């Protein structure tokens, strides 16, 4: 489409390219100039039909990527990516309100009529069937499961430093994480209905060597018809304690269009990129699907792999690069995470610090430690959750709260009416006793996923 053409029409819609480091990157590929006349001709011709007209109505004040509204930071309008602006949204609500829940779309939001919706199931060891929305709501038992979803790339903005700019979207700040009650039918029940012996597989009386993946494709597609897709392992899909759902409700209301109306996959404990929205097809596969968007977007590389190397600037030949891409693991579950959301000065003596902590794969938060001196010393926070802790089924985040006593020196300063500058740190530990890494650098990865180094917040405390 844009080959042999001018970018202006395309970037009128994809405004997220108006960022200094992206403009600079483009200069690396410059080979020539147009005359002024030719430039005028080609620019006049360049236009891209706005694919996003089917999106729900957006805030008209959003003029460019990374716009801040009263409630949200809109990382990009096309496709729509937004996170709550105020971190207290996370720490004040155990269940994030739907309108403040982060949204990561890869394409335009498809417009799907309730009675037109159809879900196709096909592949290894199942009968090819089609189900309507009514089928999904009436033929299967409804379950409600509280589950946190975090984008694999949450906290990406931390990676975007001046000497190492990040070239992946959408540059989340902190809040691409939210918790909700999801209501729908169990994926394993639907697969069972399609003929798969899920009970036999769970009990170990039935084994299929040629069935390893469940691939999901969404109704959303880009301008050329490429759909968003994601895969989960078959073990997760058939596990009765895996709690995979095909949901039609979010926080007891109809699933909003931005969150996948009418049907979205919820694979609890897995990264947001696996929770395919607007599910159109489910395919049971032996080998990983080439249509899996995560195989391009959500791989984890070693810190020495930089964008230049991926860009094949003479460092690697095509085959080597292909091998490198193929061997880097694709993200399914995410590492342990904690985010400081709020703090208060209590009588110039203590700081009350609140936040959220979550671990992928259903692991529980065993502990969350908080520091008010940049990580020199820690105090264990109180874990607050209305949900019973289980073994490997802890899909929801927990809130933490910690009262940390200020040092005598700082207390004295506040008493004398002076401000103090300190660094708050949080560090969660899951029940495998894996802890968040102290520093970003050893875990830097070029695609900006699984970002969970200590959350550091520099604050100035004023006297009460």
């Amino acid at each position, binding site marked *: 489409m844009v080959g042999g053409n001018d970018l202006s029409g395309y970037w009128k819609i994809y405004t997220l390219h108006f960022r200094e480091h992206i403009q600079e990157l483009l200069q690396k590929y410059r080979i020539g100039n147009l005359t002024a006349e030719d430039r005028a001709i080609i620019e006049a011709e360049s236009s891209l039909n706005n694919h996003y007209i089917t999106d729900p109505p957006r805030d008209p004040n959003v003029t460019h990527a990374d716009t801040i509204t009263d409630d949200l930071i809109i990382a990009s309008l096309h496709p729509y990516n937004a996170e709550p602006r105020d971190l207290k949204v996370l720490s004040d609500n155990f269940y994030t309100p739907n309108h403040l829940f982060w949204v990561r779309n890869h394409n335009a939001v498809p417009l799907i009529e309730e009675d037109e919706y159809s879900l196709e199931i096909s592949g290894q060891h199942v009968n090819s069937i089609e189900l309507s929305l009514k089928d999904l709501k009436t033929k299967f038992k409804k379950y409600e499961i509280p589950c946190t979803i975090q984008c694999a790339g949450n906290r990406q903005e931390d990676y975007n430093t001046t000497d190492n700019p990040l070239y992946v979207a959408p540059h989340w700040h902190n809040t691409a994480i939210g918790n909700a009650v999801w209501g729908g039918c169990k994926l394993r029940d639907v697969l069972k209905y399609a003929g798969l012996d899920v009970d036999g597989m769970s009990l170990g009386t039935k084994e299929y060597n040629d069935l390893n993946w469940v691939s999901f494709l969404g109704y959303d597609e880009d301008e050329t018809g490429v759909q968003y897709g994601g895969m989960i392992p078959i073990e997760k899909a058939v596990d009765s304690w895996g709690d995979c759902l095909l949901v039609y409700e979010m926080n007891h209301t109809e699933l909003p269009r931005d969150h996948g109306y009418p049907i979205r996959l919820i694979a609890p404990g897995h990264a947001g990129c696996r929770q395919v929205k607007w599910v159109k097809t489910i395919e049971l596969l032996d080998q990983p699907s080439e249509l899996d968007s995560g195989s391009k977007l959500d791989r984890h590389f070693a810190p020495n792999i930089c964008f230049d190397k991926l860009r094949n600037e003479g460092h690697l030949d095509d085959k080597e690069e292909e091998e490198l891409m193929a061997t880097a693991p694709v993200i399914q579950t995410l590492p342990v995470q904690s985010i400081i959301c709020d703090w208060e*000065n209590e009588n110039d003596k203590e700081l009350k610090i609140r936040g959220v902590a979550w671990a992928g794969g259903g692991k529980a938060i065993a502990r969350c430690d908080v520091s008010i001196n940049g990580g020199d010393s820690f105090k264990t926070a109180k874990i607050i959750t209305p949900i019973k802790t289980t073994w490997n089924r802890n899909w929801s985040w927990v809130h933490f709260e910690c009262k940390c006593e200020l040092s005598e020196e700082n207390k004295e300063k506040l008493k004398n009416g002076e401000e103090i500058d300190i660094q708050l740190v949080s560090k969660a530990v899951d029940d495998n006793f894996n802890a968040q890494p102290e520093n970003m650098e050893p875990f830097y990865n070029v695609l900006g996923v699984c970002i969970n180094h200590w959350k550091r917040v520099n*604050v100035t405390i004023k006297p009460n």
Partner: protein
Amino acid sequence: MIGGISAASIGTAAYIVNTRKPGDNNDLLIHPQPPSISSPTKCDNNLKQIQKSKSTSSIDKKAAKLMSTVIKPGIEPYALTTTYTKNHATEEEIHEITDINKYMDKYPIIPLSQVREHYSPDVGDGTVWVTWKGGVYDVTQFMDHHPGKSIYCYSVQFKNVTMIVNQFRRFNTY
């Protein structure tokens, strides 16, 4: 809008606006201030230097030599700037922040007809070119790493049209 957020939403604590170290996160509740366009950036300084060097007589010869050199894509003609503004900008603003035409003299003029020939990796020499603000770019190497890969070249005619038709059909039935 940004100024109004600050004190009210964070109670007794306030932010230190300081230099950003890797891994630090001091933009918790307040989004950093968008770059001031009027203040000189490093790009402006580079531009001034280039303008300065233009006054020397050797510039024409130098430019002529560069134009005759085949510049391979992927090889940097200059060092990237190391100061980036953090935020996105509007289309107008980004032109003031990054004057991409400051390197214009280094490249030859390419006729439009030649640009149009490079629309797909499946035709001609297999390179894909695009233009932006009067510059011509060979993005063949970059395409595979761009999230919107398919937008560059695939389905030049047919699929595109059906997509648009489908889109309107769906829109109209709403």
